[in-house]
């Protein structure tokens, strides 16, 4: 009797809604599998281990950037400076290739510059209460401009993407497992556990869900926000290093095209732009979905413009589905 009742409950729309709301990863992974299935049908034999490796490799930087958006969106913010910071990090490191300090110095300088940008973002958002959207847009102008100035200074010394980054960003083990997972997996575990288990992670949710309640409970939002935006900028810088290694190019606008997809991946992954709801796991699947989708549209032979149109439409459909089933934005 009870099993019968449970079965019928599974079939009700409410049960489906609950599934979507409580376990958003399940339908997302379902969507991912469907997309992979369509690719397999469209071009039989393409899906295999090497293909999965390529997809994974392309998804890693996007997933990291989506992580920046998830963390900031949990507090009701957003970080639109990640594109500029990521490009800057890749570019600055490349300019140090022929210098005495070499690549380690370059990476250190890039990370320090990124942390500084994040610090200013955090102070602006946390202390001065500037809207995160506009604060990070302004910061992206500053970072881009300074990177350009740096470019003019360094143009004589010659630059190239260091071999280490190329190996890390585009190399694979046995032509399947991308080397970038060495960076990504520890980072992923840290973020996932940090959000779930650490006080800092819980504070992010608390501040985004109800800032007043968080303040009355003794949370110092400004301290949290400063640390948060520094973390976000550092993640963006690491993603930028991987992107420059993946594409074997270093330019001051390299990662700009990843900015909007990073927001899209976070949104598809179930993170609310209004704060308080979401997680990194969904964003990783979101980044995979976007990468597979791009691959699918390429396989179908669609030209770039059509891909963009479909890309935008799918983001809206997924976001609308979320809003419908969860009853909130």
């Amino acid at each position, binding site marked *: 009797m009870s099993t019968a009742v449970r079965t019928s409950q599974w079939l009700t729309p409410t049960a489906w809604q609950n599934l979507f709301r409580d376990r958003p990863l399940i339908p997302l992974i379902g969507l991912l599998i469907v997309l992979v299935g369509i690719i397999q049908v469209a071009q039989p034999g393409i899906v295999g281990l090497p293909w999965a490796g390529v997809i994974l490799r392309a998804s890693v930087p996007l997933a990291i950037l989506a992580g920046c958006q998830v963390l900031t969106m949990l507090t009701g913010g957003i970080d639109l400076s990640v594109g500029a910071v990521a490009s800057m990090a890749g570019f600055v490191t490349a300019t140090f290739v022929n210098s005495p300090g070499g690549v380690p110095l370059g990476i250190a300088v890039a990370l320090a510059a990124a942390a500084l940008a994040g610090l200013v973002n955090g102070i602006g958002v946390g202390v*001065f209460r500037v809207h995160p959207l506009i604060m990070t847009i302004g910061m*992206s102008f500053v970072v881009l401009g300074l990177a350009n100035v740096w470019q003019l200074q360094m143009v004589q010394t010659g630059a190239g993407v260091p071999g280490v980054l190329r190996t890390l960003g585009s190399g694979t083990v046995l032509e399947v497992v991308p080397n970038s997972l060495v960076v990504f997996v520890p980072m992923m575990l840290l973020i996932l556990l940090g959000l779930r288990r650490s006080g800092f992670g819980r504070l992010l949710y608390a501040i985004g869900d109800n800032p007043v309640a968080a303040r009355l409970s003794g949370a110092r939002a400004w301290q949290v926000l400063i640390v948060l935006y520094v973390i976000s900028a550092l993640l963006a810088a690491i993603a930028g290093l991987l992107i420059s290694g993946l594409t074997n190019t270093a330019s001051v606008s390299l990662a700009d095209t990843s900015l909007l997809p990073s927001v899209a991946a976070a949104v598809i992954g179930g993170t609310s732009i209004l704060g308080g709801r979401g997680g990194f796991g969904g964003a990783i699947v979101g980044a995979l979905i976007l990468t597979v989708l791009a691959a699918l549209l390429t396989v179908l032979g669609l030209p770039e413009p059509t891909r963009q149109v479909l890309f*935008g439409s799918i983001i809206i459909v997924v976001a609308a589905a979320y809003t419908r089933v969860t009853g909130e934005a």
Partner: protein
Amino acid sequence: MTNATATMNRVASLGADVRRNAWTLGLLAFLVVLLVFTKVIQPGYGPIAAQGLGTSVLPLALAAVAQAIVVIAGGIDLSIGSMMALTSVVSATLMKGQSEEFGVAVVVGVLLLGVVLGAVNGGLVVITRVPDIVVTLAMSFVWAGFALLVRAAPGGGAALWLKDLVIGPIGNEWIPRAAIAMVVVVAIIWIPVVRSRLGLSIYAIGSNQLAAFRSGVPVGRTKLAAYVLTGLCAALAGLSLTASTGIGTPVPGPYTLMSVAAVVLGGVSLAGGRGGVFGPIVAVVVLQMIRTDMTFLNVNTNLAVVAQGVILIGVLMFGSLFELRRARA
């Protein structure tokens, strides 16, 4: 006695007007200082430069007006740059090699296209209840994709009369035609709206959607109308791009983020319900003048980009610090 009271009332209401528009007036004063400063450092700054200034700021000024309307209504439109690209390539492609009269039909058609684009954006926001920023972010891909479908590379042409509307002086050689075009647009679109019931509704839903709803304001319809107006202004901005460059470019320029920056600098609150379109227009001119001055001072153009970002962040930090102080007092 009554006379004295009337005068006092007039003075008081003037005072209220000044206080309400303090931000815009301050910006205007700053612009005047900048103009004087420009004339001092570059005595050769003459009518030709003023005309050039008018023509070059017009697209961004119109984009800022477009963004201001939707932000006042409590939304945001991240697809303005893409809508400009789409309307610009459509107009340039249709006008190439055609008669001047046909150009009139094209302009009317493109303005209607802008209305449709805005209606789609607004309709999706209202129907799906997905946050504005997500919907318009996704639509920015869609409109940019359509722009590339219309024309893969920059090209096309513009009717002579359209170019004449925005290039060159009118009456006095110091008055750019672009400035007159801007005034006409504001007079035809913004002033009637702001004085009507619709204008009141737009401010109402922007400042407190729930209160507006309970007071009987049709929230959905008003939001849709705001997006339609934004689409119309974005189409005007796209036409001005075609007119000032003589061609259509399918890749969106930096107009989306710059328009958000200009709107906030112009005293429009991103939370909605406050500000107007004059502030953003002045802010656009100020930003461009700062760039011009830095060129005259032989400052690296990339540092000019940095300066724009620093000014944006700095002004906002002090602006919100001022607000915080006042809120506490």
